[in-house]
């Protein structure tokens, strides 16, 4: 059994999605438990794979018993095992927490919702585990298409936001596909390890340079790096809250993982960081992106739009850290993939709880929330402190590594941007806390809807949220072990 974990991880949600789609109209009650079972199976396999990697080192799985590069292989190593466990946990926790919200937001279509949810998860897990450049494109598309559909059925202008997302996402994915085509043209193979072994002979070729720039630009578009971020704020703020807390932790972080995978294990690190001016330009773009996104976040009037811009700044952290190209900064970037997924999940679950209870998340409606919804506010406060970077939450440690890496590289621009963004985050979150703590409670809907209960979220929502918030602190305390046991082994030894 344990030999088949990599395939089990992806096929369990896929099969569950198919079954759910068939029974969606007849037995909607069966769908959420089935989805939860499938995602638990995925989480189980992910954890099993992490244990095996820690015990025996990286391993691979040959689908159809064809050895790579003839067939498609799944490669599991320290890098993706770590990210997989985080992503599978995020998907499962979100599924459990948002059950009530799904029932009220998608009445009559819960079955289809869960089928798309599982397809999205299957695609994401597949992207994380695959060792084949073209297979990654197919999985990317399955993730994107289910994501478009989930976003498209949200708030008032959701369809418009989603179509915009379709256009940007398709350009991004097409550019990635074109980059893979260029690599295939010059190397004749699609297997990542095979490309990695052939490329050092071809450093001088203009085709490799073009492939690198095109594929990376496509990924930047998909991950919403600052000047290419157009789709993200609307898509995230128009999506329904269960969808938002699914795609916000998973989409951009997965794309950053793909960037790390491409930069370290498909293109040789020497090529990625030293051969071109590209790396230096990207670090400056990321620094500028962090500053601009933080400033834009200050001017938003609703919690979810503000958070969308904070997320864009976080993408800048990871991209900037990775492209600095030294060991400490890359450690910070990889650690931040995991931490940011957890923080984003936590903060959006809290926002989802507000929107579920209050039907609104503008700052004005948050008045007096500390008294009315104390536990939800505790969760939001923990996530906020982590995003600001207060120890012992996990956000502090990844930011520590990132700033340390930037100092090692003598890149003062990025250091300044990171500190500026932390300060802005402090302003943003303390403004929210202030409104929620000091301002007296005033229900703006009192006249229209007196029946609406304005109280703490139900325990089934609250328990997983509190677990996530505790997880933020737990991840922070475990940072040392994660770095020495997993991330150190994930970065090639050639990088100092």
């Amino acid at each position, binding site marked *: 059994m344990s030999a088949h974990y990599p395939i089990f991880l992806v096929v369990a949600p896929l099969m569950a999605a198919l079954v759910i789609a068939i029974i969606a109209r007849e037995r909607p009650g069966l769908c959420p438990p089935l989805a939860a079972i499938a995602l638990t199976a995925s989480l189980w396999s992910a954890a099993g794979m992490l244990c095996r990697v820690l015990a025996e080192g990286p391993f691979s799985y040959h689908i159809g018993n064809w050895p790579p590069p003839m067939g498609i292989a799944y490669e599991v190593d320290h890098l993706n095992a770590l990210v997989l466990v985080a992503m599978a946990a995020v998907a499962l926790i979100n599924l459990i927490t948002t059950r009530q919200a799904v029932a009220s937001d998608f009445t009559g279509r819960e079955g289809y919702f869960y089928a798309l949810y599982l397809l999205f998860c299957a695609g994401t897990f597949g992207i994380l585990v695959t060792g084949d450049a073209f297979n990654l494109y*197919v999985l990317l598309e399955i993730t994107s298409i289910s994501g478009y559909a989930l976003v498209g059925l949200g708030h008032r202008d959701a*369809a418009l936001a989603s*179509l915009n997302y*379709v*256009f940007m996402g398709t350009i991004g994915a097409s550019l990635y596909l074109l980059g893979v085509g260029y690599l295939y043209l010059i190397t004749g193979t699609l297997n990542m390890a095979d490309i990695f072994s052939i490329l050092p002979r071809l450093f001088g070729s203009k085709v490799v340079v073009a492939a690198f720039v095109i594929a990376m630009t496509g990924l930047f578009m998909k991950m919403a790096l600052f000047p290419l971020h157009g789709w993200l704020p609307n898509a995230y703020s128009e999506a329904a809250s269960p969808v938002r807390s699914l795609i916000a932790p998973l989409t951009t972080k997965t794309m950053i993982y793909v960037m790390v995978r491409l930069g370290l294990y498909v293109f040789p690190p020497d090529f990625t960081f030293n051969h071109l001016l590209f790396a230096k330009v990207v670090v400056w773009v990321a620094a500028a992106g962090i500053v601009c996104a933080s400033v834009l976040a200050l001017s938003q009037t609703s919690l979810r739009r503000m958070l969308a811009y904070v997320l864009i700044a976080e993408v800048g952290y990871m991209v900037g850290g990775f492209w600095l190209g030294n060991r400490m900064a890359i450690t910070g970037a990889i650690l931040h993939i995991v931490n940011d997924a957890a923080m984003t999940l936590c903060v959006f679950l809290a926002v989802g709880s507000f929107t579920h209870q209050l039907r609104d998340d503008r700052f004005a409606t948050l008045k007096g929330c500390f008294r009315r919804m104390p536990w939800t506010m505790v969760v939001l406060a923990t996530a906020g402190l982590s995003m600001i970077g207060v120890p012992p939450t996990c956000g502090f440690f990844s930011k520590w590594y990132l700033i340390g890496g930037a100092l090692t590289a003598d890149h003062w621009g990025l250091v300044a941007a990171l500190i500026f963004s932390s300060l802005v985050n402090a302003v943003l979150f303390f403004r929210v806390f202030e409104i929620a703590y000091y301002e007296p409670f005033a229900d703006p809907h009192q006249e229209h809807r007196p029946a609406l209960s304005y109280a703490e979220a139900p325990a089934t929502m609250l328990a997983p949220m509190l677990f996530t918030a505790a997880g933020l602190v737990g991840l922070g305390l475990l940072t040392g072990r994660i770095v020495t046991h997993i991330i150190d082994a994930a970065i090639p030894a050639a990088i100092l």
Partner: protein
Amino acid sequence: MTTAGYINLIIAKYNYWIYIVLMCIGLWAMIAKRNLIKKIIGMNILQTAIILFYVSIATKKGATLPILGHHDAGHFVDYATVINPLPHVLMLTAIVVSVATLGVALALAMKIYNRYDTLEEDEIHARVRES
């Protein structure tokens, strides 16, 4: 490079030049066109341009189709005489992906039309601002 060299370059790779032109047309339509259906057409042109690129990689001068006869069983097949099948396989998948994206994009465009009563982007944005 001499003039003859440039002409040689153009003739030797004319398929690749055309794909670049198509790719730019598609990208330009997606960025600059205001009508949503036109943007979707541009998206499809972009995707087919990439397929054209992959199919161009696969060709070999003077080679035959990637379908063997039964008399080839047990023989040694010279790979220079058969067109490279791998890009064809990849592009079958890409065509499927493009029709899937097309379906979802059209569904979203119809939802947008039902809501704003127009397909022009600037008019839609004006209505969003009004409400």
